[in-house]
């Protein structure tokens, strides 16, 4: 049905009279960066591109993460989808499943040659003999704290789980929670749980042959540890998303949080003292230096199957990844979006932003931490479509909730979690 619709559309466009050459190719991009200042920044880049490319006209439609999982497949199926759609790794398989994607391996190779992608970001979209999206920006979880607060309590930055627990305990006082951890059935909790798992030797949820291996001793140990840390979190942690964690840190109610970045809120809503803001890699279970973290390589998918529109979309992406533009793109939210290219990491346009300059040390640490980033379900070079449902249903977080909220034994909860994953993979 959808194929017929698009064929009709394509035919219609090709049959248009020659005067169409004068009309610009109109393409739309959907993204989930809705906060007004991000929309504004994207718009200014779009305006620049449109001015420099009179034969192409790009427009943006900001969408909402809560709605897009339902909306995008529906819109694509109805033939009203966009030409470009930003994505995170577990979102792409859904669109690939409904036949909306063509491999962009050649295009990615071209860009890789020009800008040198961070390998893990391309890997997250490489499977089934193709590359399904173009990496665009990276986000990684880190441990944030205030130097002064740690100093006052006389503790050093934790590097192992034991130290982490001891630090959280020492930092928990009457009006301060040592370690703010979420326990909500939501993406943020998926992310924090996985960050702990990945540093405890439990980064793979699939075996080489595609069978699930979520239920293993390292995973259970990770959940046990996470659960033991919950006593240092505020009581409303089971309903936390990113916003609550940041607010807790900004208001000094939490001494430490796991977050992609707190720089913006720290600067605008808290005291904004760059010299006091500390960031570290997530501690490993045994204190060995091989820290890892969850990495979300955000990318852009090309959905149109018309040559002209695909080409126009590629032009726009080339424009964005140019070092002189890329920095401004990333800094739509300073400190949150990290470069996925080597030349982006050294780009003047990135480092010249005032906020980035002010928090230069922290951002350099974040970029360094991100080199060792992983994402569950996307680690073995093979991707299993069920990962979409597993992510969308927040099974990792769900499993945590049964331990933290319902009081199940970690071993039982993890076994049930694996059953749930199996069910979703039917």
């Amino acid at each position: 049905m959808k194929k017929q619709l698009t064929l009709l559309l394509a035919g219609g466009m090709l049959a248009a009279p020659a005067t169409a050459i004068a009309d610009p190719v109109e393409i739309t991009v959907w993204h989930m960066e809705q906060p007004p200042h991000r929309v504004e920044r994207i718009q200014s880049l779009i305006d620049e591109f449109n001015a420099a490319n009179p034969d192409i006209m790009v427009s943006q439609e900001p969408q909402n993460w809560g709605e897009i999982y339902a909306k995008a497949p529906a819109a694509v199926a109805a033939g009203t989808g966009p030409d470009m759609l930003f994505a995170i790794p577990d979102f792409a398989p859904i669109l690939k499943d409904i036949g909306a994607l063509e491999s962009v391996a050649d295009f990615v190779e071209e860009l890789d040659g020009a800008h040198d992608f961070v390998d893990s970001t391309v890997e997250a979209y490489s499977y089934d003999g193709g590359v399904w999206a173009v990496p665009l920006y990276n986000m990684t979880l880190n441990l944030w704290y205030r130097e002064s607060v740690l100093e006052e309590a006389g503790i050093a930055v934790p590097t192992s789980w034991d130290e982490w627990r001891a630090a959280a305990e020492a930092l928990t006082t009457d009006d301060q929670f040592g370690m703010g951890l979420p326990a909500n059935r939501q993406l943020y909790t998926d992310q924090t749980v996985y960050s702990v798992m990945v540093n405890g030797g439990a980064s793979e949820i699939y075996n080489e042959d595609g069978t699930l291996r979520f239920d293993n001793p390292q995973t259970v140990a990770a959940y046990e540890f996470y659960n033991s840390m919950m006593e240092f979190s505020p009581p409303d942690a089971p309903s936390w998303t990113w916003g609550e964690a940041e607010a807790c840190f900004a208001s000094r109610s939490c001494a430490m949080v796991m977050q992609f970045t707190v720089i913006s809120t720290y600067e605008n809503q808290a005291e904004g003292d760059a010299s006091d803001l500390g960031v570290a890699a997530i501690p490993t279970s045994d204190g060995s230096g091989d820290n890892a973290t969850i990495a979300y390589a955000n990318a852009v998918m090309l959905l149109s199957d018309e040559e002209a529109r695909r080409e126009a979309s590629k032009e726009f992406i080339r424009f964005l990844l140019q070092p002189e533009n890329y920095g401004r793109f990333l800094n739509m939210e300073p400190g949150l979006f990290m470069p996925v290219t080597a030349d982006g990491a050294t780009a003047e346009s990135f480092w010249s932003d005032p906020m980035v300059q002010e928090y230069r040390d922290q951002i350099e640490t974040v970029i360094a931490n991100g080199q060792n980033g992983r994402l569950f379900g996307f680690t073995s070079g093979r991707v299993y479509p069920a990962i979409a449902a597993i992510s969308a249903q927040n099974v990792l977080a769900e499993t945590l909730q049964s331990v933290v909220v319902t009081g199940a034994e970690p071993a039982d909860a993890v076994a049930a979690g694996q059953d749930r994953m199996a069910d979703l993979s039917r």
Partner: protein
Amino acid sequence: MRRPLRWSIALAAGLLVLAALIGLPFWWVVSGAFKAPQEIIARVPTFFPQSFTLEHFEKLLSASDYLTYLVNSVFVSVLSALVTLVLAIPASYAFFRLTFRGRETLYRIILLAYAFPSIVVLIPLFATFARLGLVDTRLALVLVNVAFALPFAIWMLRSFFASIPREIEEAARLDGGAPLTVLLRIMIPLTAPGIAAVAIFAFVTSWTEYVFASVMILSDAKRTIPVGFSGIIGQYQVDWGLLLAGASLAILPVVLLFALIGRWFVTGLTEGAVK
């Protein structure tokens, strides 16, 4: 009609509780929208604002399309209310004043319209709208809103029509009036307050609708307030000031509407028909 003292006290106490229950949350939200960011997230919240700033409203209006959302919401809600009335008034009149076969059964079926989870209608309706080219149109929202408001509207109108004395209607018919004329010339003017109440009901249900609006509307320019509002809730961080300002502005139009015509809603319900 004198009232014993203890009743007066009970009444006053009840009123106070009611006022607090309804008014306090809104006070906190609106007063919070004017507070400085630090004061909003402070661990010990303040009842009376200690700071004053307009930055949240500035940010909201300059950096987002909030006014567009407002216009869209007004357009959709007004249209939904009108269409609901146009469909509900004749239907209600027919159910409760005219006789025809199957009247009873049809009336029962009307209320059954609520007897299923509205979510299930979402996808088939989306597919149909897609085929008709109605996706990403405000008309689609109007159609959905009317569908959900219509049954209750028909039921609401019933009691207003029922309370008009039969003699008036008989007289009009004896004068040789066709049912349509009777409806337009006599019944509607007599039940005007009730009709206003139903119109407001349809308006408000459209104004507050979220789920269908979030899926049916794809482009920013057509968004309604509820969807637009959920959009400014940041994905990875929460700007409480911005949210409180947004909430205040989302409430403002309906509050203004009610300041103007709210009493008609109440008198419409309580009096229903001009005696």
